[in-house]
């Protein structure tokens, strides 16, 4: 690089920083915009490290290999899960079998009998309102806090409690060490979500950064024209512009560093407790950090020079060349076409374990398809506005502005469109996954909860549950077998009173003595011919409890999808001629009626069950909460959607503000000859709303296509999530109106005569 080059670069920098108030404002806007984008990029670059650190700690605390013999170095450990209100509370009951038993990671010493070690989040729950009920759950006192190395993240609710009675019969594992197990395989759908999520986050940030480096580009071009006037040639002008772009990008990197430090602390708020990272976990991957540090300034220079190619900077002013240039479609079809080509082979379904190659294929396909939004949008907006005409003065002013120059509007809308497309794709996948895992739920009007024995001996449970404060009713649910041939597997019949059976399937009507044929979606229920008489077996394989003649014309009822165990029949005890207390058959669940005036009744039940059988599952009926990883993913998607739309709304507002400032004189002239504010306001709205609508349309099209591809890849039914699409449309419409409304005060201020002074 020659000294002249360097001098010109430095001149660009000096012009940037010595531009007076408006120059500083422009530089501040660029630094803030690029900084926001860089901050987000750094968070994304740190995500792999954070996930790896989290997984490492989870692996380190996983139970080691089981050992047969008890010894001085062995430990019995039972992993359990309970809930406190909406919060899942996970932990382990531990009982050392010798003085050399391994202490769990993050715990200073082995919990003694009756000692509870809790995570900070659990300590806060116990110390919070109503936490005393939770404190009673383990009949233990808090003896210490689990250190970060024993937790997946700062918000994880986790505990270790020492027991003196735990045995392998309770389901406990005998181990000699923690950690060393193979990492758990992740659901392919979650992998798809993570890959697409990263792509969806990345693209709008890149679009935003490229937009931000062009804030105030028109005033910069005027400045360059002035420099041309004093003798700079076009090459020198480009180098001066490069210096100007570089200083903005470098300041943006510095601001981005600060934004990242802030986001490191705040990102946990957006994420569900299980996903929130320790700030120290968020360390950008060195290669990605280097890429950001190099590519952002390089990108800023490239974008600036590319924009300059489309204008001619002449000594007496800037001449734009790009006004009516017709955009070509053919090359814009290449990225989405390539994306479809990459994703097409995955339509038949992903392999069980999604390998690195498939991940790359998936990510590249999704990114290319989403890139289609960015490259197709300028063409589409131009094609649409070219065909528009007529209408009111406001419409004409708005449309003609877009016909002459849609570049600026499209630049800002691209970010929205990419985000919306990605969010629609993710929401579609999530909704289907959640529907598949939740389905229609049993009602909660008569009975509110169920405790499963999971094969454990439930003797005494009924009495203990009935004696729990807040429990009004305990109903028993069991099952038996209908088997005519002792060598053949039996046909299963669920037995319970009508209130119990209603929790398994919606019944048309029910009275004691009724029975129903059960239909389990996706499972071909074996049935017996009507009129056949069959023995009913319970716990005693040899002695039938009764005989049942299968009635003709049994009403068929469809089991709730949450009901995991397929049954062929549902029957009241009287129908099978069994005792009302179901003695003799397999009892696998107790259904509970809770006192609605005692909101903590369910917590009392959990306390009882923790004492009786800590590993026994407990489920609430009518609980809309999705108790699996998709709920967390949905929360992340919604949080990101809100954050991104705010982010883009802010950038659109900056764009509108910039455009208004550039047109201040024209606006004042229009006001001078009597143009009403509402005409100009409506014109501004059209200039924002039309590209946004076209962008939204394209986003819905590409987002839905991507969603369909992803659903097919995960072998889920291909259905569009219209609710999510409607929600996104409404959000974008609100944002367009809000951005326009926020631009109006400036518009009205610019309709002032000072702009008309020509002396």
């Amino acid at each position, binding site marked *: 690089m020659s000294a002249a080059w360097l001098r010109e670069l430095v001149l660009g920098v000096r012009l940037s920083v010595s531009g007076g108030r408006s120059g500083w404002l422009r530089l501040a806007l660029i630094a803030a915009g690029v900084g926001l984008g860089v901050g987000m990029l750094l968070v994304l670059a740190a995500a792999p490290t954070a996930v790896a650190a989290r997984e490492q700690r989870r692996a380190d605390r996983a139970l080691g290999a089981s050992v047969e013999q008890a010894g001085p170095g062995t430990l019995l450990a039972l992993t359990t899960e309970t809930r406190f209100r909406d919060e899942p509370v996970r932990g382990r009951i531990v009982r050392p079998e010798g003085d050399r038993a391994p202490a769990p990671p993050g715990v200073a010493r082995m919990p003694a009998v009756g000692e509870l070690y809790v995570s900070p989040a659990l300590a806060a729950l116990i110390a919070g309102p109503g936490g005393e009920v939770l404190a009673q759950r383990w009949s233990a006192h808090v003896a210490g806090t689990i250190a970060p190395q024993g937790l997946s993240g700062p918000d994880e609710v986790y505990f270790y409690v020492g027991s003196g009675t735990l045995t392998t019969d309770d389901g406990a594992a005998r181990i000699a060490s923690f950690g060393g197990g193979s990492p758990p395989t992740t659901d392919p759908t979650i992998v798809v979500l993570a890959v697409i999520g990263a792509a969806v986050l990345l693209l709008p940030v890149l679009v935003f950064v490229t937009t931000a480096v062009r804030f105030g580009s028109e005033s910069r071009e005027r400045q360059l024209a002035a420099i041309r006037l004093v003798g700079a040639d076009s090459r020198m002008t480009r180098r001066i512009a490069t210096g100007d772009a570089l200083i903005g990008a470098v300041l943006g990197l510095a601001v981005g560093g600060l934004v990242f430090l802030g986001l490191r602390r705040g990102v946990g708020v957006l994420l569900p407790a299980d996903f929130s990272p320790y700030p120290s976990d968020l360390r950008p991957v060195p290669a990605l950090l280097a890429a950001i540090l190099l590519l952002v300034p390089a990108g800023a220079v490239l974008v600036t020079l590319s924009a300059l190619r489309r204008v001619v900077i002449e000594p007496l002013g800037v001449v734009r060349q790009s006004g009516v240039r017709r955009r070509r479609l053919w090359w814009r079809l290449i990225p989405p076409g390539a994306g479809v080509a990459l994703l097409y082979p995955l339509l038949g379904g992903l392999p069980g374990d999604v390998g690195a190659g498939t991940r790359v294929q998936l990510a590249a396909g999704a990114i290319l398809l989403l890139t289609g939004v960015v490259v197709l949008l300028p063409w589409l907006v131009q094609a649409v506005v070219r065909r528009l005409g*007529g209408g009111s003065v406001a419409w004409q002013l708005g449309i*003609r502005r877009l016909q002459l120059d849609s570049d600026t509007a499209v630049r800002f809308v691209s970010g929205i469109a990419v985000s919306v497309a990605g969010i629609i794709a993710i929401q579609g996948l999530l909704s289907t996954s959640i529907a598949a895992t939740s389905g229609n739920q049993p009602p909660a009007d008569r009975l509110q909860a169920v405790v499963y024995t999971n094969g454990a001996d439930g003797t005494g449970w009924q009495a203990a549950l009935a004696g729990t404060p807040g429990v009004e009713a305990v109903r028993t649910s069991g099952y038996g077998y209908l088997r005519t041939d002792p060598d053949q597997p039996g046909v299963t019949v669920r037995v319970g009173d009508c209130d119990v059976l209603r929790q398994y399937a919606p019944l048309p009507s029910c009275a004691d003595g009724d029975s129903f044929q059960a239909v389990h979606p996706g499972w071909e229920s074996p049935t017996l011919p009507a009129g056949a008489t069959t023995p009913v077996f319970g716990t005693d394989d040899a002695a039938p409890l009764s005989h049942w003649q299968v009635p003709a014309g049994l009403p068929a009822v469809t089991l709730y999808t949450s009901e995991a165990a397929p049954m062929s029949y549902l029957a009241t005890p009287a129908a099978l001629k069994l005792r009302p207390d179901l003695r003799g058959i397999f009892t696998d669940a107790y259904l509970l009626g809770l006192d609605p005036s005692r909101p903590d009744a369910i917590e009392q039940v959990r306390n009882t069950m923790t004492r009786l059988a800590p590993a026994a599952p407990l489920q609430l009926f009518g609980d809309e909460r999705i108790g699996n990883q998709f709920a967390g993913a949905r929360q992340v998607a919604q949080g990101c959607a809100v954050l991104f739309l705010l982010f883009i709304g802010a950038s659109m507002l900056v764009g509108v503000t910039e455009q208004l400032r550039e047109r201040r004189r*024209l606006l004042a*002239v*229009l006001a001078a000859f009597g143009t*009403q504010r509402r005409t100009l306001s409506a014109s501004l709205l059209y200039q924002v709303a039309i590209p946004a609508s076209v962008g939204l349309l394209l986003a819905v099209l590409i987002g839905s296509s991507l969603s369909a591809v992803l659903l097919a890849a995960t072998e889920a039914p291909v259905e569009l999530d219209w609710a999510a699409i409607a929600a996104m449309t409404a959000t974008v419409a609100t944002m367009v109106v809000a951005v326009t409304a926020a631009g109006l005060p400036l518009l009205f201020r610019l309709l002032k005569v000072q702009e*008309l002074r*020509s002396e």
Partner: protein
Amino acid sequence: MPSSPLLVADGVSKSFGITRALNGASLQVRPGEVLALTGPSGSGKSTLLHCLSGILAPDSGRVSFEGRDLTAMSDRERSALRRGAFGFVFQFGQLVPELTCLENVALPLRLAGVRRSRAERRAAELLVRLEVVEVAGKRPGQASGGQGQRVAVARALVTDPQVIFADEPTGALDSRNGEQVMRLLVAAAKERGSAVVLVTHEARIASYADREVSFRDGAAVVAEGVR
């Protein structure tokens, strides 16, 4: 007998912050006359033009049009007056770059609620009259400076205004184009009986006026050259 004044400024003062732009300026504009406001930069002539046209409200003094006090009118009423009774020509940036020249000329009529086809027909007539019909379908950026200024004059005339306010209308043009614009502006205004209030610092342009008022330090100090 001289006709009664159309526009009257009486002791008009206006300040911008600590800068006093107008200091008790008074003058009258009669129907159909061409009045030039001249003076050095910063003398307040443009500010007076803005006060006369109801764009700016004076701090003190009174501006009346056909006996109606502009200073007592609401912003909406003044806007309506500017749409119907006044026309404007400025030095720079006055044509909407996205609209064609024909649409620019038709714009004031459309703002007044005239149907598009009728407005554009009328605009075309004026473009013919101003000798720039060849740029009717072009955008302002595709026309020369002189052509653009004649389009602006056509736009100022399209509503048959009673007063045309022209603020340095030839300031960005060479002398030949400037002369042509002034000749056409004055002739077309005379044909329609429109008064013209012209702000200029060029004696050559001021010579097109029937009367000239010089400004200094925010006040009309000399009334001369009644032609």
